[in-house]
């Protein structure tokens, strides 16, 4: 087993788990802070209310202390209740019965009109929140006296509540995280299912259990699977063509070989007798090679701009047929391009133009247009080659296109151009048709489909 990189699914899950962990921690922390803040504010409000209640019920006693006249809040009267109060003054202080033995020890002594909150600990170590408010009391004689009124409340019950909330938040976010991770794992599996299917189908193809990928792929994969299928089809066609060529070659060479053997056995192997058989073998090899050696279609092809090769062909043919001047009109829609192997295109167009040159009287028209269809995202290609020769009669047309296809047919070196062109076209799922042209001769139309 070769070492493999971690799977996409594992990578995504690990990354998402870390992300979720961080998100849950931040959420829990901020929720807790918010809750704590809110709670503290509420405690402070309670203390303020207590202090104000104390002040409103207080009056100067005979000894000059400020004393609450009655304790509205029963908790202040119960020792260890968790709510405490005291009033400090220059002439002595008052402390609520609840604070007896509690060791309440608040430090703040704010000036009149000021207030101060503080955290403190009682003798038993429990935490309290205290509020000290400085007041200035107007005496009946018009003088004033300063006091500090304090209230304190135990925070222990509230801290207990916070601990519970924290535990609840932690459990909640862990559960939520687990739920989300599970959901993501499922979503990933669901989303990646086509990839697993692709993998298994490719393995099936490798193992020879299937010929091509199935249909109905998600849009994101359709391009890849379409190209793969095109590649597979192209390869299979090519293989079939090679097999057919090999078969045809072997079979068609048998006849001249047999003839030569007979000549040898009869002692009649003079050069003059052998030469026609050699010629025949040579023709067969040339012919079959011509049919077999082309690239064929595939998904890997890049666009070929057709203008330049067509002009090269015109120049080349003008040299080859130097004794036959021909007026060649090339009408090519600007920028026309098609994904085809350059060699195949030259072979296709070369055969069509060569054929036209051979049979025309003095004029050839080549027209290249994109071939569009609603089914294709990219247009196909249509090439018309017309000449002003005698044309090809309808009854001959099919035969011309199939010339030399059958293995046992006697093969001439000439006249297979159109049938070779047709075979290349069909390797690209294209067609070749023969019709009547506007110049009076034949019109050969090549159509290569879009994608």
């Amino acid at each position: 087993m070769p070492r493999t990189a971690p799977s996409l699914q594992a990578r995504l899950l690990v990354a998402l788990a870390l992300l979720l962990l961080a998100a849950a921690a931040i959420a829990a922390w901020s929720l807790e802070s918010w809750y704590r803040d809110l709670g503290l504010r509420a405690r402070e409000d309670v203390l303020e209310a207590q202090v104000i209640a104390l002040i409103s019920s207080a009056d100067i006693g005979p000894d000059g202390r400020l004393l609450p006249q009655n304790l509205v809040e029963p908790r202040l009267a119960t020792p260890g209740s968790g709510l405490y109060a005291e009033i400090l003054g220059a002439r002595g202080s008052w402390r609520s019965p609840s604070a007896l033995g509690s060791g309440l020890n608040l430090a703040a002594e704010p000036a009149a009109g000021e207030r101060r909150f503080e955290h403190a600990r009682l003798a038993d170590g429990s935490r309290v929140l205290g509020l000290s408010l400085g007041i200035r009391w107007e005496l009946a004689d018009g003088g004033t006296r300063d006091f500090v009124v304090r209230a304190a409340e135990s925070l222990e019950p509230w801290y207990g509540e916070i601990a519970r909330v924290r535990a609840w938040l932690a459990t909640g976010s862990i559960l939520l995280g687990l739920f989300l991770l599970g959901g993501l794992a499922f979503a990933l599996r669901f989303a990646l299912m086509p990839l697993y299917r692709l993998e298994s189908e490719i393995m099936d193809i490798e193992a020879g259990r299937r010929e091509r990928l199935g249909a109905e792929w998600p849009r994101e994969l359709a391009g890849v699977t379409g190209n793969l299928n095109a590649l597979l089809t192209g390869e299979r066609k090519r293989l079939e063509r090679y097999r057919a060529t090999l078969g045809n070659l072997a079979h068609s060479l048998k006849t001249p070989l047999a003839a030569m053997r007979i000549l040898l056995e009869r002692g009649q192997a003079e050069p003059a007798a052998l030469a026609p058989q050699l010629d025949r073998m040579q023709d067969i090899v040339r012919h079959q090679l011509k049919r077999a050696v082309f690239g064929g279609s595939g998904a890997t092809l890049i666009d070929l701009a057709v203008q330049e090769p067509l002009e090269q062909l015109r120049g080349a043919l003008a040299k080859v047929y130097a004794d036959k001047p021909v007026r060649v009109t090339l009408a090519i829609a600007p920028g026309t391009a098609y994904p085809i192997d350059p060699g195949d295109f030259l072979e296709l167009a070369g055969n069509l133009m060569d054929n036209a040159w051979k049979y025309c009287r003095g004029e050839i028209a080549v027209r290249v247009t994109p071939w569009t269809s609603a089914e294709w995202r990219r247009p196909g290609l249509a090439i018309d080659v017309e000449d002003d020769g005698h044309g090809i009669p309808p009854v001959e047309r099919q035969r011309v296109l199939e010339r030399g296809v059958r293995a046992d047919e006697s093969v001439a070196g000439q006249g297979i151009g159109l049938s070779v062109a047709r075979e290349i076209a069909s390797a690209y799922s294209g067609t070749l048709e023969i019709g009547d042209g506007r110049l009076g001769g034949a019109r050969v139309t090549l159509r290569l489909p879009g994608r």
Partner: protein
Amino acid sequence: MRLLVLEDEPALRESLVQQFRGAGFTIDQAADGVEGEFAGLEYPVDVAVVDLGLPLRSGLEAIRAWRKAGKSFPVLILTARDSWQEKVAGLDAGADDYVTKPFRFEEVLARVQALLRRSGGWSQPLLRSGGVELDTRSQQVRVNGAAIELTAFEYRLLEYLMLRAGQVISKSELTEKLYEQDFERDSNTIEVFIGRLRKKLDPDGKRQPIETLRGRGYRVARE
């Protein structure tokens, strides 16, 4: 006519050389691209037959080098691959025609003769000047419609002059083109052959088909 054979396969090259010699050509030969390119640049070549697949430097590169140096002699390429891609590449590089392997010598010879004829400005295989008709295909010469017999060398001399009808051809050019480089060169020999040729073409000396330009050379009129 001086022909350069550029082919690396010894058997094929030998056979081409022999058969072209037999057809009256003066031969230069090379077995690789570098030597061949040099020969084409330095020797007075009239036509070249070039195999595309050569050691050291491809036939295409040799042809491009010749064209770049302004050499305009016609080039026939021999190609093993019968594909338009290969043919177009060769013709685009500056070759003038192609023959695919395997080939018959007659085919190659016919193409070479057609190239020579066209490079001399003749569009027909039948060359005419005065009353003289020379058929490059059958190598037959007629004077006023009557066939005459020429020796191989006389034919080559006449063909050379007629292919370049209208041009003045010096004796040294004729020596160069009609003799292989290792032969004895003697311009008197050319004069002797021109004299014989004139007697056969124009026994009574009326038409003067081959004009002598003193100190410059010979000329056949172009019609």
